[in-house]
């Protein structure tokens, strides 16, 4: 049908650039021309540079710090130590996990690279020279890098957490069992699970180590703090994935009132969880700016980034899974020993000290389950961030997807079939899991069948069997692995009733202003780090309010202008802020409806929304476009309606969202060199309603590549002395274009029933599902030779070791 101007309804839909279209990114014009504005691009008059003296030791007492030579260097303005911060109460700071962390070493250091002193100088060269001139006298202490050893050791890592009488006060998450113990977190039914497993006919057990790694975005962490002493206002630019939360934290620890603090996250060069936390560099820069009265910039170098600001994973997971002889899973047991390093700085919602590890029943209908997590201090860097995943979901999904494979081996069953038997059925949603979650929606069988068919799964198994024969007869030295993974994520944290960070409910927000000429600006509490929010949030709004996406500016990251929100991590932007955007859009539309009705001289109920306009019901030739309505909102006195067209929505999600997907990887492994060749990778994602397929595909490619890296070699490794062995990009594995395959992407669509537009989030799915898929492929290649499980990362020498243990080197 065409309207008066000869434009069809389809053309009007297309002109909006709304949800579902492959809209090109609005961010790209500046990025492709080198005109992004990242933290290190910010320059302010008189700006000074901060740099840290860091501990070379993993555990040592500090006997003295001599700063005199540094202070004597021309261009050095100040040197801060814990003694300088103590009078301000800033030598320690609260962590997101309810612990506290030294801002600057207070008498001792607990990990290599720990911040000891902060130099402020006229430029970064002088600062670096001054760092070399600071003389710190250390007395080395025994180093513990193993969490199991730590729980037995007499060495006390955190004297501040032991009472004078030697007793152990409770930690933030309850009683502590040992002076190096942080918490025990239990979920599920211990006794019942134990009974089910003890009496089961089939039980498979395995212990797996999910190694320590790091998000390593290409841009490191940094900030510029600028204290305006005249107006009493602090402006803090930084690489913050959660600018509002940072503002609140800065206010709480500095005593500066929150309205006098403006936090700005400019363009961010990737985050992946690295930029959620608050780091000593931020605190020191703020203090330095207050002390000097001029702006102070701090940007960590790559080595500092890998050694100090955040780590991910480092979970020892011991599992038991039981089943009937037919393969129906009856119980799951998971015990985790979590290495948190010197301070518990995990970025998790307050009530979840091990994040959402209790999603570890996965995509399966498991009636009984139990999870216990023990957090432990060691002499490693603090962190425990969610590296491209919702809180500890990568660990959980890796655990269950490995346990399924181990059970399949135990039962001599096909792992694809075992999954199928145990999937939660479509009609079971919303599904209550044994460990306390309500899965919103899913259609696992359809997705799985589509994936298996797409790769000709049976054909792959036939080929693999032939390969095993050829290997045994000496025709080849390459084995073939078929990696399977079916993941269910839990993202979009989260409902305020159970999700908060530092007491801040994890809602999110959107504020929209429609301008008189029919364009708009929307501001959100989130912040893009490459996800393309400026593109996709405008698409949501375009569909909701009928103005073209190209006429809508999306602004994030400035706490003076954006409504309060908890930021971007844990795939929460679309599930939470995306919902807020849709809801705010609907408020706009509701008011627009009243204006339209007034203009059309009919009752409010007699007009209805149609793409980009309100039409009189039954008389589509009578309409007012949203553009006309916008103008009317500003130029007409409409009885009973305030002028203007604005709305704000704070969205408290009723539930998390549960994206899922089916991944299959085919790889060839050179048994002699341990080299891996990814021959094929098929990824089917169901993230509910799809806002921009182009961006979804890009997210999947990127997440899979980070998964490949983690599974095949990316590791923060320590030696026995607590020295970081992987502190540069020579040793810390970031794959290049040469090591990465092309991926095949696919999808099904199962909308979230509780989300206003049915979207679930996708950015982290490929990482969460990808890691076990790559790892399962490696393990699967050796299954025919008796392998049950081998730990990641599957780098060359570890694969060689696996093959060697199986006697495959003759």
């Amino acid at each position, binding site marked *: 049908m065409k309207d008066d101007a000869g434009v069809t309804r389809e053309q009007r839909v297309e002109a909006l650039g709304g949800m579902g279209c492959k809209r090109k990114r609005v961010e790209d014009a500046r990025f492709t021309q080198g005109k992004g504005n990242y933290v*290190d691009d910010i320059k302010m008059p008189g700006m000074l540079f901060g740099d840290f003296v860091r501990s070379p030791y993993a555990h040592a007492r500090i006997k003295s710090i001599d700063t005199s030579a540094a202070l004597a260097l021309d261009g050095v303005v100040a040197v801060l130590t814990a003694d300088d911060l103590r009078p301000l109460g800033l030598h320690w700071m609260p962590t997101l996990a309810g612990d506290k962390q030294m801002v600057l070493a207070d008498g001792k250091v607990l990990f290599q690279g720990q911040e000891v002193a902060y130099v402020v100088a006229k430029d970064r060269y002088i600062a670096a020279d001054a760092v070399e001139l600071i003389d710190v006298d250390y007395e080395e202490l025994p180093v513990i890098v193993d969490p199991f050893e730590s729980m037995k050791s007499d060495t006390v890592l955190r004297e501040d957490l032991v009472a004078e009488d030697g007793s152990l006060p409770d930690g933030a998450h309850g009683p502590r069992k040992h002076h190096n113990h942080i918490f025990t977190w239990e979920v599920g039914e211990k006794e019942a699970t134990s009974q089910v497993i003890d009496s089961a006919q089939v039980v498979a057990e395995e212990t797996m180590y999910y190694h320590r790694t790091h998000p390593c975005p290409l841009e490191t962490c940094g900030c510029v703090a600028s204290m305006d002493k005249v107006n009493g206002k602090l402006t803090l630019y930084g690489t913050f994935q959660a600018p509002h939360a940072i503002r609140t934290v800065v206010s709480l620890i500095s005593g500066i009132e929150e309205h006098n603090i403006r936090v700005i996250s400019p363009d961010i060069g990737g985050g992946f969880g690295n930029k959620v936390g608050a780091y000593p560099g931020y605190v020191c820069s703020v203090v330095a700016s207050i002390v000097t009265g001029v702006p102070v910039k701090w940007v960590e170098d790559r080595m500092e980034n890998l050694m100090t600001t955040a780590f991910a994973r480092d979970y020892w997971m011991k599992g038991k899974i039981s089943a009937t002889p037919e393969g129906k899973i009856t119980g799951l047991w998971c015990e985790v020993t979590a290495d948190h390093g010197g301070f518990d700085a995990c970025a998790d919602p307050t009530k979840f000290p091990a994040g959402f590890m209790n999603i570890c029943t996965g995509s399966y209908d498991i009636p009984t389950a139990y999870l216990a997590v023990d957090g432990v201090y060691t002499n490693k860097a603090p962190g425990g961030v969610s590296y491209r995943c919702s809180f500890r979901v990568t660990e959980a999904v890796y655990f269950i997807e490995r346990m399924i494979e181990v059970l399949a081996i135990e039962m001599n069953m096909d792992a694809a079939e075992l999954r199928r038997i145990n999937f939660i059925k479509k009609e079971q949603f919303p599904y209550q899991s044994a460990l306390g979650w309500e899965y919103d929606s899913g259609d696992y069988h359809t997705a799985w069948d589509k994936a298996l068919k797409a790769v000709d799964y049976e054909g792959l198994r036939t080929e693999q069997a032939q390969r095993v024969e050829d290997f045994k007869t000496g025709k080849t030295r390459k084995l073939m692995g078929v990696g399977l993974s079916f993941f269910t994520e839990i993202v979009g944290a989260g409902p305020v009733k159970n999700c908060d960070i530092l007491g801040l409910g994890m809602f999110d927000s959107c504020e929209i202003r429609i301008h008189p000429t029919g364009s708009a600006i929307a501001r959100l509490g989130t912040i893009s780090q490459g996800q393309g929010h400026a593109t996709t949030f405008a698409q949501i709004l375009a569909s909701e309010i009928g103005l073209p996406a190209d006429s809508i500016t999306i602004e994030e990251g400035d706490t003076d202008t954006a409504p309060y929100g908890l930021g971007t991590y844990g795939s929460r932007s679309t599930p939470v802020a995306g919902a807020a955007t849709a809801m705010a859009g609907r408020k706009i539309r509701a008011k627009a409806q009243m204006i339209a009705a007034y203009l059309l001289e009919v009752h409010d109920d007699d007009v209805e929304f149609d793409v980009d306009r309100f039409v009189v019901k039954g008389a589509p030739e009578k309409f007012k476009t949203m553009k006309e309505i916008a103008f009317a909102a500003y130029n007409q006195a409409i009885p009973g309606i305030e002028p203007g067209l604005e709305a704000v929505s704070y969205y408290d999600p009723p539930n998390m969202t549960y994206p899922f997907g089916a991944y299959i990887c085919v790889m060839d492994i050179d048994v002699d060199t341990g080299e891996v060749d990814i021959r094929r990778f098929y990824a089917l994602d169901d993230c509910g309603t799809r806002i921009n397929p182009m961006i979804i595909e890009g997210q999947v490619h990127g997440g899979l590549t980070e998964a490949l890296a983690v599974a095949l070699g990316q590791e923060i490794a320590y030696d026995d002395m607590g020295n970081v062995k992987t502190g540069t990009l020579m040793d810390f594995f970031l794959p290049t274009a040469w090591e990465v395959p092309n991926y095949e992407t696919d999808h099904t669509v199962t909308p979230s029933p509780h989300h206003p537009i049915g979207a679930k989030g996708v950015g982290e799915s490929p990482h969460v599902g990808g890691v076990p898929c790559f790892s399962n492929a490696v393990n699967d290649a050796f299954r025919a030779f008796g392998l049950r499980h081998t730990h990641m990362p599957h780098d060359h020498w570890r694969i060689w070791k696996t093959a060697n243990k199986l006697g495959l080197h003759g």
Partner: protein
Amino acid sequence: MSKKMHIQLTVNGEAQEFLAEPRELLIHTLRERLNITGPHIGCETSHCGACTVTLNGKSVKSCTVFVAQADGAEITTIEGLGNPDKLHVLQEAFKEHHGLQCGFCTPGMITRASKLLEENPSPTEEEVRFGMAGNICRCTGYQNIVKSILAAAAEMSASKEAAE
């Protein structure tokens, strides 16, 4: 601090003269001194390529070049490849094929790709992957970067043919 030396550079066609310590890294000269902030600092050990510029006709990692070494050199950065009125074909192609996400590696990536296509106007996918292996991207998984470069190569060949 060592004594400063007189440095002359031509950056994106503009002559620059200044005094600098010889140890100043070229990436800092560009970013701090000349306000050319397209090239970025990623790894600082010559692995990531975020700081890639073209120096005397070679793709180099400007984090691993002292300004003293570059004295007298001609340098092109992302800022010299195109402008808002006329983007470089690669800039258009990266936009068109979603060849970037956070944008941090993009200037180095495109600058390197421009040199690659100059040396090999019709590369295969494998040649693109090998020729771009000095640039790390953490966001895209490279698939769309490779696609963008191949598309730009095709576009450049087509317009060259049309011109002939």
